């Protein structure tokens, strides 16, 4: 069945869509009350974030917009040191979208939310004219533990920089699908709840965390450099990139340092904690390829320096220009 303007009217078609697809999949007593707002237990300090998802295609190897819209918001909460608890979701559907697709997307959101440990407690649906497109906004609330102090300004000379796995998989998967290139590259789209949980519970002194999404590693580390005033020193040979993505980049002239990811994070940890942090990451479901990729250098030069595999050194700037549109 195709979505029509009637599905956004607020009348019978809307309530059928909500009960048949969203309520069934999300299966949450708070949501089921269908009140104007969700009333839920809280805590003293919360983290709040929101993100909109416009990825095309909607389904891609390794994920779909449903998994993506949960992971994106959950990971943003995690990176502030918060435990993700509640999500809301707003759907903007274009006329002509398939209810079958919507069903698959809602199911994917539900299973990802379960994996990530969050509840979807409120939602909204609108229908606009168009040609079958579908967009999702999610907002998230996370509980902050007392005393959690994590932020890029806390990076210090000597800290270790860890990356949780291979760069570029999501970007390459989306681009391959759009260009009709056949390969086995899959998006890394994943919630990092388990990984962050292990890091924070493992007694590691974490100074900064950030998920490496649009703009890539280069952009994230430039932000760290300017927040902390420290130089970030990377070793190219230790930055994990799968052989297939490396080949793909070679053909298309892409640089993995600027490619978007959806299930990768950077952690900056106190010098003594590098080994422990690495073990925590590698033990996690999405961290098998984690690596220590560099260290924080002295204060005074807010730049990212990369020691290249051929033995040169170069400055890694932030991403300039467009990057890849509609990647998330």
């Amino acid at each position, binding site marked *: 069945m195709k979505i029509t303007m009637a599905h956004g009217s607020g009348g019978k078609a809307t309530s059928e869509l909500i009960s048949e697809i969203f309520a069934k999949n999300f299966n949450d007593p708070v949501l089921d009350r269908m009140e104007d707002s969700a009333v839920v237990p809280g805590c003293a300090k919360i983290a709040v974030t929101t993100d909109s998802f416009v990825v095309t295609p909607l389904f891609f190897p390794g994920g779909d917009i449903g998994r993506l819209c949960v992971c994106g918001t959950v990971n943003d909460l995690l990176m502030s040191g918060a435990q993700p608890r509640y999500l809301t979701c707003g759907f903007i559907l274009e006329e002509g979208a398939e209810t079958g697709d919507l069903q698959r997307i809602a199911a994917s959101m539900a299973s990802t939310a379960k994996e990530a440990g969050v509840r979807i407690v409120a939602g909204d649906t609108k229908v606009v004219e168009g040609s079958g497109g579908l967009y999702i906004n999610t907002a998230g609330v996370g509980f902050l533990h007392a005393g959690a102090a994590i932020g890029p300004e806390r990076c210090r000379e000597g800290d270790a920089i860890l990356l949780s796995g291979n760069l570029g998989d999501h970007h390459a998967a989306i681009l391959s699908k759009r260009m009709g290139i056949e390969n086995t590259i899959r998006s890394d789209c994943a919630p990092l709840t388990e990984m962050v949980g292990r890091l924070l519970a493992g007694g590691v002194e974490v100074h900064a965390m950030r998920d490496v999404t649009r703009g890539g590693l280069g952009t994230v580390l430039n932000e760290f450099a300017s927040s902390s005033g420290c130089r970030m020193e990377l070793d190219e040979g230790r930055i994990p990139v799968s052989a297939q993505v490396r080949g793909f980049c070679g053909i298309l002239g892409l*640089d993995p340092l600027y490619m978007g990811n959806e299930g990768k994070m950077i952690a900056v940890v106190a010098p003594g904690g590098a080994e422990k942090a690495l073990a925590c990451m590698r033990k996690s479901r999405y961290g098998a390829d984690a690596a220590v990729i560099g260290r924080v250098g002295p204060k005074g030069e807010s730049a990212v320096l*990369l020691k*290249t595999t*051929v033995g*040169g*050194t*170069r400055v890694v700037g932030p991403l*300039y*220009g*467009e990057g890849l549109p509609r990647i998330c």
Partner: protein
Amino acid sequence: MTDIRAYLKNYGGPPLRLMEVCGTHTAQISRCGIAGMLSPAIRLISGPGCPVCVTVTAYIDRLVELSLEPGTTVLTFGDLLRVRGSRRSLNDARAAGGRVRMVYSPMDSLRIASAAKSGRFVFAAVGFETTAPVYAMLLEEAEQADIRNLRLLTSLKTMPPVIDWICKNQGGIDGFLAPGHVSVITGSRAFEPLSRKYGIPFVVSGFSGEQILASLYALVRRRGKAGVLNLYPSAVTAEGNREAQRAVAHYFAPCDAAWRGMGKIAGSGLALRAPFARFDAGSLGLDDDRSFNPRCRCAKVLTGAVSPPECPLFGGACTPRTPQGACMVSQEGSCYNYFVGGRGSR
């Protein structure tokens, strides 16, 4: 490799100016931090190897004009979107209601044109010898499928004539890193007449950091001697790709072409042959080259006459976010790579 690195670092002979004329080499040299691994006596200069950078403003102006014509859509690679003509870029045109679509491959334009129920499409066909065979393939398919709503605005250029121009007018280049991709099509032999004429070495290089270092080493060792050495034999032969050469020659004929900052260079371009004029969107005579910003020194940068930081706009008014000239837009541009990679300083 260790010996090569040490040799290049400690070289104490006469000062050398070596030029690369391939945008991918430019980007890779910056990406690997190679300039900082060389003795101060070896200076690397980026030549006119980026197809976007050497495009004159009249060509961009024509694309902008076409995009604003009712019923016409301009199809282009992403790099070209932000390059300004004498007044506007294609991005500016888009904001003003122009129809511009970005494509990843020229072949996408066939799909877009044949799927469209109405309207005309113009593909911005820029490139060197490397890309010309793809356009030949596109034309062949367009002919076979009888696609009538797709035309090309060509700005196709060939490498040997511009190298000749640089040696003649600029001089002072002690050797060339010959372009790897271009050589796949033309063959390494294409550079032999130039090497003999000016008595300088050419080395055809691959694209990994190691391959570039090895090629630079070979250039330094062969300084002052003519000869073309092919250090990219896995992809390049002496004769090149004959089939691609034939396909290009079928659709295109050599023509005089205007290069940014260099003016018209005889026989340095490729134009659609007369029997295929129906595919041409008005490519001839687009020679005007007025900079958007009169202080922009892209033209001098392209020929290696000045290095990017010597331009008064570099890093101030002109950054990758506010590019004044094409060299700061393209990821293969000299100014862009200097800016993001801090070339040579470390």
